[in-house]
Every structure is written in structure tokens, then in C-alpha cells.
């Protein structure tokens, strides 16, 4: 019976962890998305976006596979030195990737099945 309680404890702990981790990942992805949107319109926001990405990258890597993170890594590099069109294109792609992370981590029938 003791093991039964341990098993229930593990399930409860994993459920809680998954709930909080999902919320945290979604919140960080949302923040990145907003900053990327802002960077699309104003290049002054690029630094804030890259800073946010650098601080969140390791956190994301705990929960999301590298394949989903590498494109953002690639897009955030050298944004200060590219033309306005290229910058807007990169930022738009970052917005799309951030949305993808949010969708990937969220609980939905699409993801489950």
C-alpha cells in the first residue's frame, strides 16, 4: 500500500510539474513573440528580443527539442547588421516559431493524437 501512495505521489507531482512547466514555457514563448512583433516594427526592440531569447533558450531546451529552437537561434543572429526587409522577415519567422513552441507545449487533441 505504501508503494501505492508513492505511485499516486509521483503521478500528482508529474501532473503539477507538467501544468506549471507548460504555463511557464507558454508565458516565455508569448513574451518572445511579443518582443519579436515589436522588433518587426522598430529595430530598437531587437536587443530586448535577443536578450529575452538568450535568457530563455536553455529553459526552452528542457522541454522542447533542439530542432524547434535552432531556427530561432539562426534568425536572431546578426539582426543588427541586416537590411530592414531582412530584419522584418527574420522577426516574422521568430514570431511564427514562438507560436509553434506555444502550440507544441499546449494540451490539445491535435498534439495528443
Amino acid at each position: 500500500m505504501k508503494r501505492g501512495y508513492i505511485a499516486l505521489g509521483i503521478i500528482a507531482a508529474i501532473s503539477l510539474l507538467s501544468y506549471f512547466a507548460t504555463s511557464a514555457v507558454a508565458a516565455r514563448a508569448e513574451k518572445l513573440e511579443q518582443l519579436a512583433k515589436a522588433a518587426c516594427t522598430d529595430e530598437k526592440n531587437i536587443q530586448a528580443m535577443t536578450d529575452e531569447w538568450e535568457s530563455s533558450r536553455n529553459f526552452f531546451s528542457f522541454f522542447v527539442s533542439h530542432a524547434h529552437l535552432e531556427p530561432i537561434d539562426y534568425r536572431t543572429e546578426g539582426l543588427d547588421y541586416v537590411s530592414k526587409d531582412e530584419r522584418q522577415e527574420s522577426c516574422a519567422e521568430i514570431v511564427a516559431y514562438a507560436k509553434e513552441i506555444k502550440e507544441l507545449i499546449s494540451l490539445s487533441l491535435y498534439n495528443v493524437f
Partner: protein
Amino acid sequence: MATLLLRTVILFLLAIVSVRLMGKRQIGEMQPTELVVTILLSEVAAAPMQDIDMPLINSALSVLLLVALSILSSVLSMRFGRFREAFDGHPAIVINNGVLDQNKMRALRLTMQDLMSSLRQKDVFDIEQVQYAIVETNGTVSVMLKPEYTPLTSSLAGKKAPDDGLPHLVICDGKIVEKALKSCDLDLSVLKKHLKKIDRHESEIMALTYSKNGFGTPIEKKKKENT
């Protein structure tokens, strides 16, 4: 993350249903839940070793969840008969009172060769000697012989067999096993006296046992032969 949890639970249940559908002959000395957990654990644990792109936490949580589900299912099986039947199935009698139940064998997809092989593993070579044969939930076959083929026991002979107790290995590979001396309540001096009596040193003995009836015959250590 929550997706991962739901996926693990769904696959766990799906694997159990599959194993239950495959029947007892596919199991091989494990309960269906144990087999499923063993198969899934090895896969889940191995995946992030091969693919470094995969977050470790996904696998770690799946492993923990599978273990928890396995424990939980065994606890529920212990408490609720219906749950046990649904998850582990129930034993099937294939030889009932000396009569082979061919319908049951067909249902279990058990061939005559399979049954004979299981009987032989139980030291039964003639099916006519069997009164009951039961295919257990883990796929093994339990056998009860007809009374005329049951080996003679002391109770059948109406005699009381002497209780020798459990023999303890007091000398193993030339060394005295202190733990065994304690568990059989034997004094070291008694052992030394016995060694003196048989004119042997402990280092010359490979194995010596002690039970209620006293010391057994010592097995002497042989020197390594050059081959």
C-alpha cells in the same frame, strides 16, 4: 508536457489491451502489466540516449509515470478482483478432471505441442497422468496429477518425515561463513572441533553444511588442474 502525460497513459493502456489480446502464450512468465512496462521502459529510456535533440525530461517523466502506473495497477489488482481480471486476465483450465478442453485451447491459441512442452517442463511426460492443467495469467502451466500418479509423500505413506531443517553453508570456498554460523546458532568452537575431528583445515574445504542433524559431508577443495 501534459500532452506527454496523456500520451504515456494512452500508450500504456493500449499496450496492455494489445498484450491481453495477444493472449497468454505471448507473455512468458510475466503478468501483462509487467510485460508492457518492461517493453515500454526500455524504449522510453533508450530514446534520448540515441537522440540528443530530444529533451531528457520527456523521457524521465515518461519512465517515472510508467513506473507509477505499474505500481498503481498492481495495487488496484490486489484490491479489486474485477480490475485484476481486466488487466491480468484469469487462469484457464485446459485439462479438467482428466479431460482436455479443446475449446479452451483454441481460445488460448494453445497447440497440443505447446501444452505437451509445458507439461514436460513440469516433469510430466504422459498427458493421461494429468487431472488438472491450468494456464496461469502469466502464461505458465500449473499441473495437478491424478492421485495414482502423485509421487508418494510421507503423509500418503502415513509416516512422519524427519525435519532436518534448512542446511546452512558454514564453510564456503575455504572460508568460514560467520553469517551462517549466527543464523544456525552454531558456535565457532564447535565448528573448529568438528574440523579437528575430520582432520581438515577450513581452507581445504570447498563446502560444508550444518543442519539440525549436524554437519554434512565436506566437499574438499581441489587444486587447479592445468588443462
